[in-house]
């Protein structure tokens, strides 16, 4: 807690023949971040034949999986799946080595790939045919305007027959130009349509070369005459028959594909995951170096895992290994990957810290403080006992349903659950249950403050909280900087503001007559002098920023007023809904109390909407107060995140055989 997890550097040298298994071991454990080694005398490792094959198979298989997936009968989505997603079954695979695995995949693909490809081919051909028939039908529908036998529209030895469409305004000039160019050796039939003319020209074959450019010039849209005999209407009937038959065939093939998907999809997806993980391993090889007989890798590992992992390495390499564990030196400080370490209840909040950026290795991990203040701010801004209850129940259900996944939703629900606790608490303090519905119904609700009547008090509380929050931030920064030996920065950048804040607080106390105002003046003055000095240390020009920086602080502080505004917005929206409900409640049409039904619907819908929109606002603005105002006082978030070399297993599970 408060500090990132301790990291040590691990270096391993062993024989090449253990490389595959050792890498797989690291990959499955997922606790080592492998870094690139730059050693002059040894050469970089490169993927061998099998790794290259695994990489190419992972791409090929993903195509097959995607094809089969589109034919798999999906488990139904919906609200139940959202709360309680069905857990994936992890199928075990006994890992003997990449060679065996690639060979197994190869033989599987040899059998299955042709089958799938054949179906895919059939599907494609059928869809192309169906498309063609549909085009033909639409052409025939067009030609049915002429009502002549289609065979007349086919060119003969002597005659060229051209059918097509031309724009209305281009029709006349086209005919004229063709007539002059061909000296009248031209017959045409036309049919007027909306914006176009359907025209059939009959010309001599030897004139065709002359006519062609003119047709192109008027953007004459030529129609391909479909094959067959008879009038368009008769042919359409035939084509429709053909279409129906082909579509039936298509359905048959699709059913075949579904069967195929049922039989092979899970297996192929399983192999895909295995291959993708092998590809991962192939990619990391360039970070390793090797000689003819040996290879070396180096990386970072959390100190707590060292014993277990070293034991594992010894076992895999049968003791033929050199392992070195080193504590990080001062030079490596910026290189150390950061893994946050907090007690279990606080761990979900690491997500929020990580989103902004992790601390440097010698900095402070703000997660524990953020966990408390974030949930509290969320609660303050939502401030309604029932809204809190709704969110709490939703979050609890999500946690229960996503327990086996440990995914983002699971962590996020934990954050919501904590926040809902504070929401309920604040709701009770402010006497807000669905806004003021109880008061409107005539009940007396115990409350500490009525936010709508005592808005100024709520504003005061919000600003006091803000001042405290900022003070905590500056104090943390002060301590961290002192610890890291940056005494001057600590005094100028952090202590100055701490004194100013203390000055403001004691000034307010002295106004109440609780202490003499000389203390307030002294504290504020000392802080302000330090602040001016800190501005001057950056050179004369930077001193121009004094005013803007000082008011920047004021702005940060006033920004906490949003705590009050959003709290009041919640009770405001709830009140608006309640007023509307009250108005409609008594409406009756004859003896039917229609108003009551509408009011109930409006109440439920409105309050749910209000919960959602206010929770969104509380979530966003609580986060903003931390990222912009709080972190601005002390936190850089410039650390490097710990990215272990780790396998991604959704449906597979690897068992390494030693």
């Amino acid at each position, binding site marked *: 807690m408060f500090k990132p997890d301790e990291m040590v550097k691990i270096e391993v040298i062993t024989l090449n023949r253990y490389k595959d298994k050792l890498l797989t071991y690291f990959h499955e454990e997922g606790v080592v971040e492998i870094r690139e080694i730059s050693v002059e005398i040894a050469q970089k490792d490169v993927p061998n034949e099998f790794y290259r094959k695994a990489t190419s198979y992972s791409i090929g298989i993903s195509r097959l999986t995607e094809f089969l997936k589109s034919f798999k009968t999906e488990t139904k989505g919906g609200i139940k799946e959202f709360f309680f997603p069905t857990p994936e079954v992890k199928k075990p695979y006994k890992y003997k080595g990449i060679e065996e695995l690639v060979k197994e995949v190869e033989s599987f693909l040899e059998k299955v790939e042709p089958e799938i490809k054949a179906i895919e081919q059939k599907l494609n051909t059928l869809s192309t045919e169906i498309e063609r028939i549909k085009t033909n039908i639409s052409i025939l529908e067009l030609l049915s305007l002429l009502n002549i036998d289609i065979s007349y529209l086919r060119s003969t030895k002597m005659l060229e027959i051209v059918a097509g469409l031309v724009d209305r305004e281009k029709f006349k000039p086209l005919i004229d130009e063709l007539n002059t160019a061909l000296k009248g050796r031209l017959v045409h039939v036309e049919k007027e349509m909306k914006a176009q003319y359907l025209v059939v020209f009959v010309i001599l074959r030897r004139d065709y070369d002359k006519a062609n450019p003119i047709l192109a010039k008027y953007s004459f849209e030529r129609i391909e005459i479909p094959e067959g005999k008879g009038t368009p209407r008769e042919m359409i009937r035939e084509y429709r028959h053909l279409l129906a038959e082909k579509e039936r065939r298509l359905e048959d093939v699709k059913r075949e594909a579904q069967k195929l998907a049922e039989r092979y999809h899970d297996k192929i997806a399983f192999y895909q995951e295995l291959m993708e993980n092998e590809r991962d391993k192939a990619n990391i090889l360039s970070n390793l170096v090797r000689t003819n007989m040996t290879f070396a890798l180096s990386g970072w590992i959390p100190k707590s895992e060292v014993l277990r992992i070293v034991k594992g390495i010894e076992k895999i390499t049968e003791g033929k290994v050199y392992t070195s564990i080193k504590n990080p030196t001062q030079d490596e400080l910026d290189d150390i990957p950061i893994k946050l370490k907090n007690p279990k209840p606080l761990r979900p909040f690491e997500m929020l810290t990580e989103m902004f950026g992790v601390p440097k290795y010698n900095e402070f991990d703000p997660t524990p403080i953020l966990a408390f203040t974030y949930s509290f701010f969320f609660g303050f801004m939502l401030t309604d006992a029932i809204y809190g209850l709704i969110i709490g129940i939703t979050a609890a259900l999500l946690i229960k349903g996503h327990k086996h996944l440990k995914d983002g939703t699971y962590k996020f629900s934990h954050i919501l659950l904590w926040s809902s606790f504070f929401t309920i608490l604040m709701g009770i303090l402010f006497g807000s249950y669905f806004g003021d519905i109880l008061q409107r119904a005539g009940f007396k609700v115990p409350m500490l403050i009525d936010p*709508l*009547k005592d*808005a100024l008090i709520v504003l005061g509380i919000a600003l006091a909280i803000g001042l405290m929050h900022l003070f905590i931030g500056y104090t943390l920064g002060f301590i961290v900087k002192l610890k890291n030996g940056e005494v001057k920065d600590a005094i100028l950048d952090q202590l100055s503001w701490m004194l100013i804040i203390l000055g403001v607080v004691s000034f307010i106390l002295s106004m109440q007559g609780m202490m003499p105002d000389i203390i307030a003046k002294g504290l504020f003055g000392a802080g302000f002098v330090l602040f001016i000095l800190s501005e001057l240390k950056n050179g004369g020009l930077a001193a121009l920023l004094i005013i803007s920086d000082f008011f920047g602080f004021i702005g940060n502080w006033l920004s906490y007023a*949003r705590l*009050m505004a959003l709290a009041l*917005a919640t009770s405001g929206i709830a009140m*608006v809904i309640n*007023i509307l409900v009250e108005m409609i409640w008594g409406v009756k049409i004859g003896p039917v109390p229609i108003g009551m039904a509408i009011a109930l619907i409006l109440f439920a819908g409105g309050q749910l909407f209000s919960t959602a929109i206010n929770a969104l606002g509380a979530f*966003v603005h609580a986060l903003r107060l931390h990222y912009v105002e709080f972190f601005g006082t002390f936190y850089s978030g410039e650390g490097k995140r710990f990215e272990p070399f780790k396998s991604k297993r959704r449906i597979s599970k690897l068992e390494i055989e030693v």
Partner: protein
Amino acid sequence: MDPIVYVALGAALAAGIAGAASSFGVGIAGAAAAGAVAEDEKNFKNALILQGLPMTQSIYGLITLFLILLVSGILGGTFKFADSTQENIIKSAILLGAGLTVGLTGLSAIPQGIIASAGIGAVSKNPKTFTQGIIFAAMAETMAIFGLVGALIMIITGVGF
């Protein structure tokens, strides 16, 4: 002017300007959201939440409208400031000021919509930028919140229930 004019104008401007600005903002973001959904339907949920952000200004406007109607007694049925005494004129003018504050700061919904639409574009390329996109959009809302703080103080301490 009669007090009723101030009060009516205050209520109308608060909900009216803020509401119009919100619809501009939601519109801008909505156009981007439609594009993102066309790219990949999975973007729907994220895009919808981002699109909804510029809506809050209209809610602030609505709250202000109701508060103005409430403290002036219009909602209760009897208009408290019917006589044109000086005190009534002052109080109703404060209500106009409060309404105008929320209405004008509500204009921040338009830039918020622009930010949200950029956020939607970013989310459709990389879903991990979702929260960051929300934070960026929320920055623009700060001004509307300040406006609401100011208006609440004006209404509750300047006029009171």
